[in-house]
């Protein structure tokens, strides 16, 4: 009974939060609702007994949305309503709905067609966390490694894109050196 109550409660909360995220015209509401929705999703993992994934969902997405907040802070006055430029509302809504339904069908059809079966039986005596490790390093090894490589590529390109003057660290410089640097900058501007 508790499971059913928890499921419907969190289902309602999650959908409500994401609804606010897409409909509100205020950046702060949207971001907060997004963070809350991400955290509410973890409840489903906990209900299903996948504790590890639930905790990871909280850790990863709370950090990811925090980065979004940082961008929101840079680009908007988050306490004011935003005037959005809406083109053809019907077209946008229709296309978005069709795309969403299509994605669900594309991913769900093969699963339904195959009559969901657990390909990897539970290992006796292994906990939730170990179970994930076993599956990741046997069945899903290639996608796992590919994701790692992709993240490495993203990190390297991020450093290259943002990394001008990487050898310069204001933290390590003394005050005199910083003053000299500023003076040189001014000279360049003047000349």
């Amino acid at each position, binding site marked *: 009974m508790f499971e059913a109550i928890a499921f419907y409660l969190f289902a309602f909360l999650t959908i409500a939060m994401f609804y606010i995220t897409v409909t509100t015209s205020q950046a702060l509401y949207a971001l907060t609702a997004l963070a809350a929705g991400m955290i509410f999703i973890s409840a489903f993992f906990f209900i299903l007994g996948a504790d590890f994934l639930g*905790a990871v969902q909280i*850790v990863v997405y*709370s*950090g990811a949305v*925090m*980065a979004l907040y940082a961008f929101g802070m840079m680009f908007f006055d988050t*306490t004011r309503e935003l005037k959005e430029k809406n083109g053809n509302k019907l077209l946008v809504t229709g296309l978005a709905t069709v795309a969403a339904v299509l994605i669900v069908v594309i991913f769900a059809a093969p699963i339904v067609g195959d009559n969901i079966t657990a390909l990897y039986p539970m290992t006796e005596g292994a*906990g*939730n966390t170990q179970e994930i490790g076993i599956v990741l390093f046997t069945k899903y090894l290639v996608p796992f490694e590919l994701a790692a490589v992709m993240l490495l590529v993203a990190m390297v390109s991020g450093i290259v894109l943002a990394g001008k003057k990487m050898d310069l660290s204001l933290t390590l410089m003394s005050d005199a050196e910083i003053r000299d640097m500023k003076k040189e900058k001014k000279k360049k501007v003047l000349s």
Partner: protein
Amino acid sequence: MEVAYLIETVIKIVVVLLVFSMLAGIGTYFERKILAFMQRRLGPMNVGPYGLLQFGADAIKLFTKEDIIPSNVVAPIFKIAPVITAATAFLAAAAIPFLPSFTIFGYEVHPIIADINIGILYILGMMGVGLYGPLLGGMASANKFALLSAARGAAVFISYEVVTGLSILAPIMMVGSLSLIDFNEYQSGGFTDWIVWSQPVAFILFWIAAFAETGRTPFHLIANDHEIVDGFGTEYSGMRWGLFFIGEYANMFFISFVIPLLFLGGYGDGSFLGALGLLGKMAFFFFFFLWTRAAWPDVRPDQLMWLCWKVLMPIAVLNILITAIVLM
């Protein structure tokens, strides 16, 4: 069975809530007193003997003060932000074993609310979510100092979390479990079994990150004291502001429980002496938070990021590598 379990859990939740919100209040008294002694002052002296009732006076003031919502703030988020800080601090406590299990009137009590098998991950995640309180409060306040403080909060969050996660990974590899009770069992052999002897680097790293996690002094840059205003709390008044404080102090107490449980043997073999030992270690770590506040200045946000990403993270990764090689 079901009903008994339900009643037991509810009682435990109420006890933890009451004890730690009380302790959070008294914690402010400890802090003021210890800071005062370190600076050769007397601290609170007027209310009650040695100022012991100062905490009560503060509580009365906070509860009865007018709750002001300024006209330009984003009201719903402004209102909910302090609740996030306080609530997540207590949510994290659900997976902490505060004492060894004991028998009372023939009924065995486990002083942990939920022994989930991913305890430490859950605790760290919840404490991380707690930083949303200052962030949202600062962003919703429509105040430039508060907004700056929120920006610093985001900077702290994205830099310390990687250090906590990586530093804790090496001990987890040794124990082979994420539950704090398993950590305690692993070290129950006594003084020489403590993880701190085999993982001193992880211990120091986690301890440093704990200061960032709770936002205590070397990394107290979220509410920057030198700006005279109170950072994210500038626009808050009354109990809303008090909830931020309850959250911060409760967090300090909980992390002071977690560090000994992870590295210093926890409650040991579960005897009465072991329980006292855990409380003693907790008291030391709480005292250390106050000690650093008296002894150290704050770092700048860029220094914190430099420290976390360029110094602590490589050390943590090296520590994991070496642990893995040794364990193989």
